[in-house]
């Protein structure tokens, strides 16, 4: 299904231990910045894929196997968040 970053709020909160949907990511493909909550999410792949809503670049991939999680964030040039 095509959803948005809200759909990965739970898993990201588990991975990063803080709320991530308001973090701003800059796309490594087109350079545009968006809140994680506003990115496109495909959650019916063998894993989850986050894509830039402007250029469709793969921002991140998430794969879970029980309590193991793999996160690929190479498509995000920078993440801005508040600590």
């Amino acid at each position: 299904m095509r959803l948005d970053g809200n759909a990965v709020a739970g898993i990201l909160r588990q991975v990063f231990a803080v709320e991530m949907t308001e973090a701003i990511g800059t796309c490594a493909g087109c350079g545009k910045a968006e809140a994680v909550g506003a990115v496109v999410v495909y959650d019916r792949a063998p894993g989850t894929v986050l894509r830039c809503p402007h250029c469709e670049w793969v921002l991140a991939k998430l794969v879970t196997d029980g309590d193991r999680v793999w996160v690929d964030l190479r498509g995000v040039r920078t993440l801005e968040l508040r600590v």
Partner: protein
Amino acid sequence: MTPIVSRGFRGRRRDDGPPDRVPPGQYVTDDFPVLSAGPTPRTPLGEWDFTIVGEVDELHRWTWEEFRALPSEEVTVDIHCVTKWSKLDTTWEGVRVDTLLEGIETSAEYVVAFCDGGYTTNLPLEDVVDGKAWVAFGYDGEPLDPEHGGPARLLVPHLYFWKSAKWVRGLQLASTDEPGFWEQNGYHLYGDPWREQRYWGD
């Protein structure tokens, strides 16, 4: 902490199926679930081509017409998705990868399938030859639906179905095994369903 079991929850009816045909941890489905990592590509056939690149003497290329003029066959196979569903007796029509590799000299031992939309997956060359793999353009007697990878997808039924790359546009031959889209991020490099090779370390 052990999860809380919810009284009366069963989930969808899952049929384990005959054990000689259904690998461990799988259940049989009658649907054909659509899994996708991105928007469905829509390459017009006039722009489509299939190429074999990498460790070859020269680039080999087929237009859609040239590809469809190659000998093809109908096959019936079981397919197994890493998300645990298996579908038995699926019929496809396609060109054997052997046919595409005919006459091509290479010292490569691996291939990477590359696709519209950027998806890639890696396989040993020996797993796509000798009648083990096809570039399929038909499913269940009809042209392959874009949702399921049409106009053409790779079909490698003896491995988990993420290796049967949708919207395939070619094969890159290489002497090293280069992890593809999912293999870079947790999924098993080889993916044998009979040894339950779903994730790294399995």
